[in-house]
């Protein structure tokens, strides 16, 4: 389970928690989030711009 952060506003998508309001159940993998999904908080950045956190990837 990993986390992905919006480089614009800092919103984090955590696979473990999902995002209930966006309709992603806990455990929804990042790969299952639609490609055209934009950041839930700012919508300035898209899924493709998100950066993986947890130190696995810079």
């Amino acid at each position: 389970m990993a986390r992905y952060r919006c480089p614009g506003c800092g919103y984090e998508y955590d696979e473990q928690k999902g995002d209930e309001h966006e309709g992603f159940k806990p455990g929804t993998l990042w790969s299952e989030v639609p490609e055209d999904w934009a950041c839930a908080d700012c919508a300035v950045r898209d899924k493709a711009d998100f950066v993986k956190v947890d130190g696995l990837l810079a």
Partner: protein
Amino acid sequence: MSTTPMSAEPAAAYRDDKRHWWWLPLFVALSPVLGVYLAATTGQKLWLWITPILWYVALPVADWLVGRDTRNPPDAAVPSLESDRYYKFLVYASIPLFYVTWIVGAWAVATQDYGWAGYLGVSLSVALTNGLALVVGHEVGHKTGRFEKRLAQIVLAVPAYGHFSAEHNRGHHKDVATPDDPASSRFGESLYAFVLREIPGALGRAWRDEKVRLARSGKGPWSLSNELLQSFAITAVLYGSALALLGPVIIPFLLISTFWGWQFLSTSNYIEHYGLLRQKLPDGRFERCRPEHSWNADHIVSNLMLYHLQRHSDHHARPTRCYQALRSDKAPELPSGYPLCFTLTYFPPLWRAVMDKRVLAVYGGDITRVNIQPSKREQILARYGAGRQTATGV
């Protein structure tokens, strides 16, 4: 606290000059009530026009007299400015006022003997405070907490525009300054053409996006979890109760205050991105939204009334930033604040005479980089000397 301040002005010494002026929109929100009161006590019915006179006459004059303010808080002062609850409180406090004003307005037109001119004045006054309710809904709807998103639904119910949060945050901010955005106006498009494209386009996009969001949780669009319907339900209760209690005499008030309130939003949107275009990248995506994709206005008085909405460039670049911390950015500048721009847009040749050259200046005269109204594309390209380039396939 021990570190050296990043800016020339130390954060600790920074004082927000506008701090106490952010009470101004609360008085504006109540101005129609003041008008009703003064008309009753003085017998002068011109008071019923207080808010239109304020918006269309007094604010342009005040903007001209007081001028612009391009100063920004130093970077180091922004976090404490943003977390100061005083600013949030002022926005929250305005929300019940929009209900009070709306109810007093409906009561006044139904029970007082104003004649048609006074009735119209009250309706337009409430229309403009409905527009301000949309600005407040905009501010709280951008915040990331559930509580503030709920407040947005509540305040947006007054102007009957409950779909705004969904439309604006997930739709407009994603597609801003692209040809497909119903809420970004195009070069050569008149305000009237834009309003007819935006209002249905925005509702359609909000409904589709909400449907997609609900479908991910396995719900249909006609669900109690539909946030558009939740806000519309509050509107139905408010408008329905007023009609039942006050009678059909308020129908013109409902129509004028609602549609002219929507016009307030649409005209703001028209001004905010006129002709500006995010260019397409080689991978087919549009370039990221940056300050140069919105028009900016630093006029002090109208910015105080509109919670810095006119610092629109920074807002689109950083949509979750609070109003008090919005910056004047390196962005295309409007000739005046929104109040005067509104009047210019009502006369399309006047608006185009003022704005078209400013759009071209943003792109160094290259018309092919502008967001152009498709029905006028050939004519506009020919006029600005780019007919040949596009014919060869740019």
